[in-house]
């Protein structure tokens, strides 16, 4: 990524997936998938957190993102009964796989926030970005 300018280091790129049924998403995203007010964070809305392939998170890291996350509904409240449990499980396995490949597993995160928890969700994303920056951001 030679094309990345200096200021990219201060705002690491993050790709996230957000369940349609979790945080209320009206006015949350720009048309190009970035979060309003956080142009470095891209959020792709998915029908259920269980829809996300672990390969997509790896792809995000490979394509230059500093981190990737999935946000589902509160644990126990998945509309499809167990999508977020399954996803949490898959993320655990992906983390193990990444650490075997000498990739920092902390670059993958899983959140669980409900309809009314948008502030907490945005705060969690901001904290995640901060953590990524603290750990060197983009490798």
């Amino acid at each position, binding site marked *: 990524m030679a094309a990345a300018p200096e200021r990219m280091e201060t705002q690491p*790129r993050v790709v996230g997936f957000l369940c349609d049924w979790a945080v209320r998403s009206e006015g949350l995203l720009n048309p190009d998938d970035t979060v309003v007010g956080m142009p470095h964070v891209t959020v792709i809305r998915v029908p259920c957190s269980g829809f996300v392939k672990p390969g997509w998170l790896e792809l995000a890291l490979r394509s230059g993102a500093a981190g990737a996350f999935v946000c589902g509904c509160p644990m126990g409240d998945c509309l499809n009964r167990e999508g977020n449990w399954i996803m949490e499980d898959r993320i655990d396995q992906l983390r193990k796989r990444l650490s075997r490949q000498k990739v920092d597993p902390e670059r993958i995160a899983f959140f*669980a926030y409900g309809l009314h928890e948008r502030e907490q969700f945005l705060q969690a994303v901001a904290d995640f970005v901060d953590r990524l920056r603290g750990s060197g951001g983009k490798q």
Partner: protein
Amino acid sequence: MYRRLLLALQSATLRLDTWVNRVLPQDFNPLYYTGGLANLFLTILVVSGILIFLYYEPSLEGAYASVEFLTHHVPYGVVFRGIHRYAADAYLVAILLHLFRNWFTDRYREARDSQWLSGMFLLVVSGFAGFTGYLLVWDERSQLLTSLTTQALRSVPLIGGWLERVFLGGPGVSDTTLPRFLFLHIGPAMTLYVLLWWHYVRLRHPKIWPPAVWVLFSLGLLFILASALPAASGPPAQPGASPEGFQVDWFFLWPYVLARWTAPGWALALVVALVVYGMVIPYTLRETPEQRGLRALGQAVVVEENCTGCELCYYDCPYNAIYMVPSPYPGKSRAAANRKLLAVVVDSRCVECGICIGACPFEALELPRMLDKDVQQRIRRGAGAAAPVAS
């Protein structure tokens, strides 16, 4: 209007969740385990019911005395009676919470209607078993409930007299009445398990138990309640007596409170109407996903060339919508060339959640309107493979 109301109720339900989640960890929020709690209380009811059954004598003369004997002379009899009494309340509260929660959070329509219908049957049968439980004590309250029920049944056109005879086990209250009531209590309780099979059959890994902490807490609470506030009978039933005031659990015996004020027939009609309405609830809102403000992504489709028959989607599908069938022909990709099985999606059960897509490592499943390659493109764009953003 109705739609807006449902949305407001959904919002309120989830708001309640966030309050509970502030006090308890998410995994222990009892509102996420209303079905499991109901099953727990049902199990407690069955076990305590069997113990009570050992002492119960279903006859006009002996019923009241046998319950009194259980309460006052059998060691811990009063505790078991109390547990049976309070677990029944807790059970009905749990299933009502379960009903409203799943209604308000939109978990009852389309592919999920089988669970809703079986749940309505479970509610009716549970309510009926709870009601006949009151009759078995055969005190004044039982007598009053019996006479109100008899009046209500008699007012049913055409089959009223027959229903009354079936209910009382004879042309009037007689020696065969209490054995009939006992059957009408235990028979429905057994039917519940048949209905529970129907309730679970479309679900993979149904959550049938609450977390262990809640099992212990509920059991402890029942023991404390049963010891502190022992269940007691009213005065024994007298032939020809007409008892007046009576206390019942209004939340499921409210039809009887109503029957005291109006004609019992009307109360019965109202109950029947409510149950029938409950059964058609999943079919009242005929909306396309767009009208519901959802993206219609289409039901999952198997990409037959790539399916290796590995069964991962089959294990993860929460609604048992994926079947593995013997592969009719080999797949095209290298991994799929020697497959033995092929995944098939049952459209009528698919809720378009996409969990199978996340499960599939072979790109053999797709949601038709959110394709893997499009998502990958959006990821690359977001990850900065295209152009950097200024921040």
